[in-house]
């Protein structure tokens, strides 16, 4: 029923690390929830079910907990179902996760020969005997990626996560997505092991796309939680890039590099858990103070809520992969493994991988831009609304939650070797080479890439150096005893007010304009001009909305198709009201005919004859002639 090997334990640790600070936070958040019993019941069931998924040892248990996880998270989204938006988001989320479940179910049924109590260990043999392993791979992929929110199954994320109460969105985005990653580790290694090269490439491509698309839509968001949700898509993409590299190396028999890449993926999984939870908590506190998710209504909150601001800053640095943060380290590892691609002896692949590198680098750059926006507009400058003006620091429990999560982030930064060693254990458990000795050959100070002539980074030294130099400079500044004067912002002499500062929309403006072909934004500009002047106007309002491309193209059309289909089915099925006898008549005719033809002896002539006869009799008896 349950198993506790290293992989499971590592993910248990991940869930615990994610959940414990969240417990504090959510208990601090609880007073602001109306349906407390409902909330808490589902909240704890949710955490337990996630634990259940990662420790379950047979398909039945796995599916049970998996579905329980979806169910509870769905109910949690509905905790504060006030407006239509929330309800639709919840519905969308649930159908998407069920869609994934369908494929998972098929996958499991096939690899267990229909007997779901069989453990994961014995699945490998059955899967090996199956004729179409790629089919299995795609079933599994669809199943897990629809939960992890990778392109093109990512559309639900920016809707569902923001609508949940903040602790829950922290859990969902930080932890639940990782459970899907666990699933990929578990079943790709235990069940589908020898991977063809194509699989790795597929995952790599999906990863690159997700990372780019995620960050691009994050940039165009005004809803802070949706912004963070989009960043989850991006980070899942980064994890998948590492994962894909690992698979590619493995199928090219570069075992060392593959272990390295997988470790990088795992490391980034942990990092994303930590800083994304922290960011959602911060966003939650801000939301909780200002009662709006619209980033344009914030501003200057750093003065009111210093703790939130500090933790949010740390998380932002980390998620933007800036040295010496943990986010930087994991992305560094992923980069190094990609640079290791120069060892591949497959030129076309070699030429392809730089594009992935490009995608990752681009993502990094855009992520920085996006978090400058998120942090700057939210916490810096002047308050843009009265709510923001009257905001103050959140209560003790919530603060504790955030600080604990910050501690997790920092620990990931400071004790990298320890964590790496752990992940190394995991890979050993999964039958891969152990590369810890190669990553930290002599001391724990320097972190080596395992590629030949690979780069080296020494996180702690970097950290020390940065802190030292900064401290030195500040000390010097203090020593100078500079005269200081407080005065209004000059701003070329214009009067600075909340109105004159840059908005988030404006900040993302250049980038949005550059990617116009992708966004296809709909812009609303209304302007009260004075006496028909073009330039002089009393008031003007500009806002821009971006509808994700995939949703506009893929999902809407599916919905339309379903509608049309159901309409026709509906019309057809109403013949029975008047013509039931005729219908049964034709039905019996068809059945007998088919039995006669297929069950007794088959000949095309009779088959065609049947067709003709059936058509005639349906026309005559059911449809009848036009009135």
């Amino acid at each position, binding site marked *: 029923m349950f198993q506790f090997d290293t992989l499971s334990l590592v993910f248990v640790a991940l869930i615990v690390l994610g959940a414990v600070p969240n417990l504090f936070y959510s208990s601090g958040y609880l007073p602001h929830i109306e349906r407390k019993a409902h909330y808490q019941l589902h909240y704890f069931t949710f955490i337990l079910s996630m634990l259940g998924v990662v420790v379950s040892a047979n398909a039945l248990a796995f599916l049970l907990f998996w579905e329980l996880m979806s169910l509870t998270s769905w109910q949690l989204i509905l905790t504060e179902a006030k407006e239509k938006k929330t309800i639709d988001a919840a519905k969308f989320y649930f159908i998407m996760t069920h869609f994934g479940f369908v494929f998972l179910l098929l996958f499991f049924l096939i690899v267990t*020969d229909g007997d*779901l109590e069989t453990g994961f260990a014995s699945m490998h043999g059955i899967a090996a005997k199956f004729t179409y392993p790629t089919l299995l791979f795609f079933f599994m992929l669809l199943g897990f990626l629809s939960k992890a929110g990778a392109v093109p199954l990512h559309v639900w994320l920016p809707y569902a996560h923001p609508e949940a109460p903040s602790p829950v969105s922290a859990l969902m985005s930080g932890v639940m997505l990782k459970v899907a990653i666990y699933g990929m580790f578990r079943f790709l290694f235990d069940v589908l092991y020898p991977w063809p090269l194509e699989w790795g490439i597929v995952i790599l491509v999906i990863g690159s796309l997700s990372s780019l698309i995620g960050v691009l839509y994050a940039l165009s968001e005004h809803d802070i939680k949706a912004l963070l949700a989009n960043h989850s898509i991006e980070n899942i993409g980064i994890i998948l890039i590492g994962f894909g590299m690992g698979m590619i190396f493995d199928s090219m028999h570069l075992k060392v590099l593959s272990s390295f890449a997988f470790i990088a993926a795992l490391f980034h999984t942990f990092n994303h858990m930590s800083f994304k939870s922290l960011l959602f908590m911060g966003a939650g506190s801000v939301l909780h103070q200002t009662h709006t998710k619209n980033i344009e209504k914030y501003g200057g909150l750093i003065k009111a809520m210093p703790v939130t601001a500090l933790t949010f800053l740390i998380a932002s640095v980390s998620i933007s992969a800036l040295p010496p943060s943990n986010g930087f380290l994991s992305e560094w590892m992923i980069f190094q493994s990609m640079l290791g691609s120069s060892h591949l002896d497959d030129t076309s692949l070699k030429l392809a991988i730089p594009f992935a590198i490009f995608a990752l680098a681009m993502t990094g750059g855009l992520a920085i831009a996006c978090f400058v926006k998120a942090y700057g507009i939210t916490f810096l400058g002047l308050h843009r609304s009265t709510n923001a003006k009257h905001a103050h620091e959140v209560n003790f429990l919530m603060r504790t939650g955030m600080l604990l999560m910050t501690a997790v982030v920092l620990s990931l930064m400071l004790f990298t070797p320890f964590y790496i060693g752990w992940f190394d254990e995991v890979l050993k458990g999964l039958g891969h080479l152990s590369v810890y000795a190669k990553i930290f050959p002599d001391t724990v100070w320097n972190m080596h890439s395992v590629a030949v002539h690979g780069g080296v980074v020494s996180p702690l030294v970097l950290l020390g150096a940065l802190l030292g130099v900064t401290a030195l400079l500040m000390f010097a500044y203090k020593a100078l005893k500079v005269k200081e004067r407080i005065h209004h912002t000059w701003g070329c002499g214009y009067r600075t007010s909340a109105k004159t500062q840059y908005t988030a929309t404006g900040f993302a403006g250049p980038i949005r304009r550059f990617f116009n072909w992708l966004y296809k934004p709909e812009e609303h500009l209304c302007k009260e001009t004075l006496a028909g002047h073009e330039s002089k106007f009393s008031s003007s309002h500009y806002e821009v909305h971006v509808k994700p491309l995939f949703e506009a193209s893929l999902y809407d059309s599916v919905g339309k198709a379903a509608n049309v289909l159901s309409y026709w089915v509906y019309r057809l099925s109403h013949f*029975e009201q008047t013509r039931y006898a005729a219908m049964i008549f034709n039905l019996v005719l068809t059945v007998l005919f088919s039995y006669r033809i297929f069950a007794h002896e088959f000949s095309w002539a009779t088959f065609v004859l049947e067709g003709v006869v059936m058509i005639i009799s349906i026309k005559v008896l059911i449809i009848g002639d036009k009135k």
Partner: protein
Amino acid sequence: MMLALLIFPALMMFAVSFFKNKKAKFLLPVTSFVILLPMVKLFMLPKPYALWGSYLVADRLDTYVLLVSSIVGIGVTLALLTLEKHVRVSGNAYRRFYRFFAVFWIGLIVSILANHMGVYWIGLELATLSTVYMIKTNHTSAAHKEAWNYMIVGAIAISLVLFGIILMYASAKPVLGEDAMQFDLLLAHAKEIPSPFLFEMGFAIATVGMFVKMGFFPMNLWLANIERASFYPVAALFSGILESAVIIGFFRFSKIAMEVNYSHLFVFVFVYTLLTIFIVSFLIFRAKDFMRLFSLSGVEHMALIALFWVSGGTFAALLHFGAHAFLKPALFLSTGVLESNGKYRIAGALRGYVGKRGTMFWFLVSLFLLAIISLPPSPMFFSELYGFGAMITVAKESDHMLAMIGAILFLLILLSVIFYRFVAVYQSMKYEGKEEEKHVYTSEIFALLLFALALMALLLPQTFSYLRGIA
């Protein structure tokens, strides 16, 4: 002896239903509560247990079905106590209802316990005809029209079933002579049937009859219309009991057909059910009121049960059957309550139930709603897992594996269309619309509780082992 014991409560009910005085009104429910006891007694007895020669033989399968049906019957009776609080019903009609309920019950017992095709058919016919009148207890022209409709269609279906039975009989007669109508003997000698084709023809016709009666393609909506037109307990009886009588017949026939030629049977049923579920899922996608929604989903589940059964997932089929037999009546009864305050409006239908009873009510109803789309820990979750498992095993053995897996995927997609619709309905019931004071009666709560308990009982390991034993 045992048979008399089984029939007795029904006969008593029949007799009591002629008393004109007030007492009858309380006597009738009491008598109908009694029906459970002999069932339990029967359940305890060693199997197989011959009740009446080789005509009525109780084995594990049909005692299980009978037990389930009787529990449903009790639930329905509980709900009937407060029928007149919700709808206008004269005492006379009330008694008549019970009278025909008694007849119905007798027919049901006969058909379920039958070990003989002919006897099975007689029982079925009896049950069908009696339900025709139950529909009529509602004095509306719609009900009247539907009753006629049901009379005719039901008659056709039933006749088809008999026709098939006779053909099968004819096919087996050269081997077994007069006993060719006994299920167990047929099953034993299925391989020796001289003309499999004749048998299959008979099976096909009989199956079409039964499927039409269960509302499969092409007759998807007639049950819905009937249940809409009649009182909600009738709907509950239909979905909970009558269909179980039909499906058990299908179980028995298909068991024999498996022996005769498995691949033909499987292809036939698979195509038929797939077609049905395709139509039904998109009808559900558009369904606008509870009755239609639930009866359509009933059709869907019946199709699934048939599919599981023919693909060898006996356990899955029976579990699913039990779960459905408890869930669907429960939903129909609650529909009665929901519609009695605030008509067919879905939005906000579950809101405004305050107080202990109210809370319990909406909680139970949402449980049922989520259980019917097989979310854990509903029994349907497990039954569907096992059922699809069985289908996959069949698929892997068949020589068109890819096509089969594709078909199963398609089936799952259709099911998720239904899933989507139900989620939407549930959400709009619970979270949309406006809040207004509504009330619900204790007896209904008890009925729902009974069903909930029965569902939990299905999840017990003992039940699982018992059902596994039936296969």
